Each structure stands twice: as C-alpha cells, then as structure tokens.
C-alpha cells in the first residue's frame, strides 16, 4: 500500500524543497534593492574594503529576525499585521502603518531612481524609462499573473550574481580584503557611523518582516517543513550578503583606489567604464536595473497588502478590483506617487532617501519589539516560543539596532 509514495520519496523531497523555496530567497533579493546597491557602492567607494566586516553582524541579525518571522507565520497562520493589531491595539498599529506607508513610498521612489539611473547609463532618458517601467509593473500585477511574475523574479534574483563578475573584473586585492575584514582601518566619527548604520539599516528594513511572514503563510508551510524553511532563509541571507560583498569589492577596488567619490549607484556604473571597462559598467547597470524593477514591483504590493490586512479591508492579488478596491487603489497610488516624484525636475532624491532611512530607523525598533513580545507569548506560539539563545541574540540585536537608530537620528543634530 502507498507504494508510489515510497517510490517517489526522494523526488518528493526535492519538489517539496523547490515548492518551499522562495520566501527567504525573495526577501533576501528584494533586500539588495536600488537603495541597498547605492549604500554598498558608496561605502565601497568611500571606505574601500574597510566596512566589509559590517556584513557579518548584519547577516546574523537578519537570520535571527527572519527565522522568528517564519516561525510565527508557520505556527499562527496569521500575518504580522494581524497579530500586532490583535495584541497591541489600534493605535500602535496605526503608528506603524502610517510610518510604513510613508517609508515605502520613499523606498519605491528610490527603486524608480534606480531604474532611471541604470537606463541613463545606457543613454535612455528617465522620462521614457520610468513611466514605461511603472506601467509595465502596474499591468503585471493588476491584469497579469503574479505567480508567474514571482517565478521570473526568482530567476532574476540569480542575475544579481552579475556583481561577482563586475567585482572580479576589477581585479580586487584578495589579501587586503581578508586583512580588512579581520582588522579594519577606520576612524570612528559620525560619517563612519552613519555609513555603518546605513549598511545595517538597508539590510534589515521593517517592511521585510511583514513580507516574510505573509509569504510563509501564503505557501501554507508547516512546522515539519521547518528544516527546509531554514535552508531557504539561510540561502536568502547568504545571497544577500554575498551580493553586498561583491558590490562593495567592485566599488572599493576600482573607485576607492582611484579616489573617486560617488553619490548614487548610477555614478558607480558610470565610473566603472573608464576604469574596469565597458562590460563591467554595463553589468553593474544591468544588476541595478533588475534589482530596481524587482523591488519596485514587490514593495508597493506588499505595503498595500499589510495596510489592508491590519485595518480589515479585503486584500490580495487573487481578488478582483471591485472586491478589494482599497487594496488596488492604495497600490496604484503608491506606484503613481513614486513615478511622479522621480519625474519631477530636480527631484530631492537625497532628501527622500534620507527621510526614508529616518522613518525606517524609527519604525524598526517598534516592529521588532512587537515581534519579540509576540513570539514569546505562549497563548500565541504555544511550545514554539523563543528558545533562550534566540531571545538573547534577538534582544541584543534589538538593543543594538535601537542604539544605532537613535544615533542615526541624533547624529545630524550634533553635526550642526
């Protein structure tokens, strides 16, 4: 009896893993969005190899937080927005989601800045590329099939590995990289601190927690899949850090050594041209383009989803427009706003990036504290509450992040 089950066990295990694969890897990839690439490029160009070490703590914190999200999703079957609303009340939820909405409009704007920048490297005006990409994304989600889009993105996220090519073409000094990781040479001042925060902050953004938990539920994962889920998360986190590493290396070995200062990811692509060759520059721009489109699709969608979930409106791309009007309206508004801001002549991009970072920095501790309280609640999690080790790492990360966030918020005050 059930012979074919046995026969197909191996096959099943592989398909099961492929079916589970996704939440961690996609979250990890969206992580390396236009904002992330910019931060890593600037850090590489400015500090050479000396800030690469920050990727190690980032990796640990990212891993711990995503594991908690996945576990909460698996056990409760409820979204993080749901849980916060039900347990922390309407006011905290409102604060979080107004912040999340503002931050994500800002983030989406930076994604379109990435689209504009990468296409400008190829000589395409932003007045053509941005509205076109915006329209394609909107149609893809509203009229198209997101399930297919998600699979395409998974393949796309592999293409972020082009940064490895870009980095190796710049002939990096591996010995120096190793030395810089173990014993970085850096001056502790506010600029450095801001940069370190920027790197950690771009790696762990508040909206990711909601996205991660929602996709775990969407996949219908169970505790018996935990092992596979962990592999997925680890692969995602490793991919995030590896891509970040090579971007920093690419910019460090070409730009830093030649003393070139950049402000945007686009600048990095441009600057690579005379130094590392045309292909290296194009590859860098291509990566930026893919990453920007990827995140510009997922961010507004995810934001509209959590906001509706928290406030009890119908949401989800499997619903029709008249079934979930709030969801689609919100999604469209975020997308249109972001596109319009980019198309403004002299758009205050740096200001938007800065304010987005500030809001994120304020939100992150609130979201994380809600999370760790929820994940330790026996009524919600049963026997799957945090183990002491996870709690120690979790709380330490939270305190560290709050400290860093506060520093980031206060630093500009001291500067003046």
């Amino acid at each position, binding site marked *: 009896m059930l012979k074919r*089950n046995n026969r197909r066990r191996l096959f099943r295990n592989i398909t099961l893993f492929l079916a589970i694969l996704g939440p961690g890897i996609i979250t990890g990839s969206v992580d390396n969005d236009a904002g992330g690439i910019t931060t890593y490029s600037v850090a590489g160009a400015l500090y050479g190899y000396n800030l690469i070490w920050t990727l190690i703590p980032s990796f640990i914190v990212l891993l711990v937080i995503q594991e908690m999200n996945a576990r909460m999703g698996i056990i409760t*079957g409820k979204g993080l927005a749901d849980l916060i609303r039900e347990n922390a009340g*309407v006011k905290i939820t409102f604060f979080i989601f107004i912040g999340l909405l503002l931050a994500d409009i800002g983030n989406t704007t930076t994604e379109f800045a990435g689209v504009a920048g990468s296409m400008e490297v190829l000589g395409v005006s932003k007045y053509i590329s941005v509205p076109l990409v915006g329209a394609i994304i909107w149609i893809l989600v509203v009229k198209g099939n997101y399930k297919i889009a998600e699979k395409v993105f998974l393949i796309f996220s592999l293409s972020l590995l082009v940064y490895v090519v870009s980095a190796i073409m710049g002939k990096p000094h591996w010995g120096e990289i190793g030395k810089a990781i173990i014993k970085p040479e850096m001056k502790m001042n506010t600029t450095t601190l801001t940069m370190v925060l920027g790197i950690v902050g771009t790696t762990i953004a508040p909206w990711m927690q909601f996205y991660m938990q929602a996709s775990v539920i969407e996949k219908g994962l169970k505790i018996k899949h935990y092992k596979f889920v962990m592999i997925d998360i680890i692969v995602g986190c490793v991919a995030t850090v590896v891509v970040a590493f090579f971007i920093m290396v690419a910019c460090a070995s070409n730009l830093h050594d030649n003393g070139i200062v950049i402000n945007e990811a686009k600048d990095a692509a441009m600057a690579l041209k005379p130094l590392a060759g045309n292909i290296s520059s194009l590859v860098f721009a291509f990566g930026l383009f893919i990453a920007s489109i990827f995140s510009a699709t997922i961010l507004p969608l995810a934001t509209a989803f959590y906001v509706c979930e928290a406030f009890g409106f119908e949401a989800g791309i499997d619903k029709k427009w008249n079934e979930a009007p709030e969801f689609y309206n919100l999604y469209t508004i975020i997308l249109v706003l972001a596109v319009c801001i980019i198309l403004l002549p002299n758009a205050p991009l740096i200001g938007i990036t800065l304010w987005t970072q500030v809001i994120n920095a304020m939100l992150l501790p609130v979201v994380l504290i809600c999370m760790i309280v929820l994940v330790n609640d026996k009524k919600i999690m049963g026997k799957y509450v945090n183990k002491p080790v996870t709690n120690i790492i979790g709380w330490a990360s939270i305190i560290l992040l709050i400290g860093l966030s506060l520093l980031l918020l206060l630093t500009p005050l001291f500067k003046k």
Partner: protein
Amino acid sequence: MGNLTTFYFSRLLGCDIFDARENILGSISDVWVQVPPHTDDEAARPKIAGIIIKSGGEKRHVQFTDLQIVKFGTKYKVQCQSLHDVQPELFADGMLLKANILDKQIVDITGRKLVRVNDIRMVAISNGAYAIAVDVGIEGLLRRIGIEIPIKFMVSLFKGRIPSKYILWDDIEAIDFSNLNIKLSKTYSKLHTLHPSDVADIIEELGKSSKTTVFSSLDVEKAADVLEELKDHEQVHIIENLSVEKAADVLEKMPANEAADIIDRLENKRAEELLKEMKKETSDEVRELLEYPNTKVGSLMSTDVLSFNQHSTVEEVLLHIRQQKPDMELLYNFFIVNSKERLIATVSLRDLLISEPASPLKNIMKKKPVSVYDDDPLDSLAEIVSKYNLLAVPVIYENNVLAGMVVVDDILEDLIGKRRTK
C-alpha cells in the same frame, strides 16, 4: 448629562467604575457578555453580564446589579449597586468583548467574508446593556485612533462623508476564542448556514488554531462538503489536526477520488491510520484509487456509480433512485452492465424521465458507449467530454469491466489546476 441609550464599547474600556457611594472600584479592562437563554429568537443579543476590573495592577472578575452608564463629554461614568467577585472560569461561557471581538476578525454572515471589528455599538436600556452591532467602517477606525472629530471636520469642508459601516449582531459570528484559556466546544450555528464553498473561503483566511476549531464544529456531512472546497494544503492541514476518528468519518463522506487525493498528500503513517479507521468498503476503494499515478484517468475516477441490468424497467430504476437518494453527480449518467459486470450501454436521466415506466432499459439505452480505460492519460478526457457532450465518462478496465466514471466537474477542476500551476 443623562441616561444614555447608545454608546461605543471602545469608550467604555478604561473607564472608572463607581459603587453607589461614589467610590472608585477600578477601571474596566474587559466586558463579559452572554446571550440571554430565554429569548423569542428575534433578537438574541448579548447582554453585559460581568466585568473584568483592574484596580492597582490586580484583575477582578465581578458581577453586579443595576449597571448605569452616564455620559460626561466623551467619557462615560459607570456606576453599579452591589458587586461581587466570581470565579474567572465562569467567564468562559459566553464571550469577552475585548478579548474575543474587538480588533479581531469575525464572519460577516450576509457578506460571507471575514471582517475586522473596529468598535462595538452598544445600547443601555432599563433591564441592562446589550451589544447590538459591530462597527467595521473607517469611522470606527478613526474613533479608535482618536482623530475622528478633526478628520470629520476636514472632510465636511470638502462636502465629503466618512463611510461608516455597521453589521447587526444577528449577522455576525465571532470566531476567535483562543484567548479564553478554557477550551470549550463553541458552536458556530450562523456560520453553518453558509454555502460550503463560502465556509471554505473563510476557513482559508483564518489563523491556524481557529481553522481547526471552526472546522471541527461542522457536522460530518457539511464538513465533507467544505473539505472538498478547500485548497490542497489547507485540506492536509485540517486532516492532520483532526482526531483520527473524526477525520476518517469526514473522508468517508467524500467521493472516493477526492478522499484519495487528500490521503495521497498525507504522510504515510497518518494515511495508513486513517485508512484503517475508515469503513473497509470505502478504504478499499480509496486504496485502489491511490495506486493510480496522477497522470492517469484512474486517479480522477469516482468508483461510486449507478449501474443496472438491461432487463430492469424504467420504473424500477426510478424507484431505486428515489430510495437511495444518491448525490447529484451520480445522476449524470447511468450505466448498463452485463452479467460479467462489463459495460454495454449508458442511459441518461433524460431518457429515463421521458420513457414509459414499464419499458425495459434495453429499449432506451445507447449501445457502444464512449468510454475510457482506467490507465488512459488524463489529457484525453477533456476532448472526449466536449466532443460527445458528456457529463460523466464511464471508465473501464482492460477486460471491459466497469471501473467507475469521471465527472465533468473533476475534469474541469483538474484543467483549471493545471493552468494555475503552469
């Protein structure tokens, strides 16, 4: 100042409660309501029956007499006569408005979907205070955040209105009782009136613990219908979390091919337990279906069919159907087999209805029927159904013995499923 008739639950929370001599007893942290047992069914609205009071960090579960709620501006003054402590366990019967309703998801029975409660509209009359409706609109949300009045003013400048949306208590079903420590078998009688596919949609959106509680409350017949409508992974989740007995009962009520699909997706140990628990007759059928790979006709076939001898009369057949009361699907097509159980013809429901009661099936049956073999590929089915306009295709073994049939609904479902995963 005066006795007020309607009020909002959110504003009641945190109010101080006074005794007859104006002493503060504590602040209201939750309200316990109970549906009065003897009502004329017309408006079975929950009545405030107790309060959880917080005073000095301690929680007291109390009952009282003569509750009075008086309005002072936007704050309420709550006063009662005598007050006595009761066991917290008592409150498990009935529900707590904050723990079970406010901010939670409930089922909107008329709208057939889950909604989130922003506030609760209550009324105080001479014999007590009642919950009458839940507020699920934006207005309630703004009230909770505390910016209702300024926003209303701003919107009114543009001649707009903030939509308010209430659902009467009769039209809702509370779902989430996980905060009550005591596990009670709650009945969801209003939910049971919904169509199985609506219940399935609602179950899919619930949290994991509520899913199982709501599903377990369904009677076996309804449960089988609902289970059939659930998504694949939800089916597995439900079956894994039910007791083996209950799960087996539900699976028995399902068409064997659907049951086989679900069992095929379970872990071997659990599957074997269930098959042992099920009636032998049903489990044998399921086991047989499990042997077919997913790409073959056999995996989709239903072994439940109505087959007759060609010498039976129309009247006999109709009588048999009347007595057996089979599911709709079984009436899609009837099959005529010979003494060796080999398929020789089919008869449709229309043929039966328009024929003389006394005529034998032999006279009305269609010989040389279209059929498929049990190990034919699934892909062939859609074409056959559409070409010959069939509702159910007979399935035969290699030796022409009737094995079962594949109904058009399942073929369609299979096609849609394939398109979705492509």
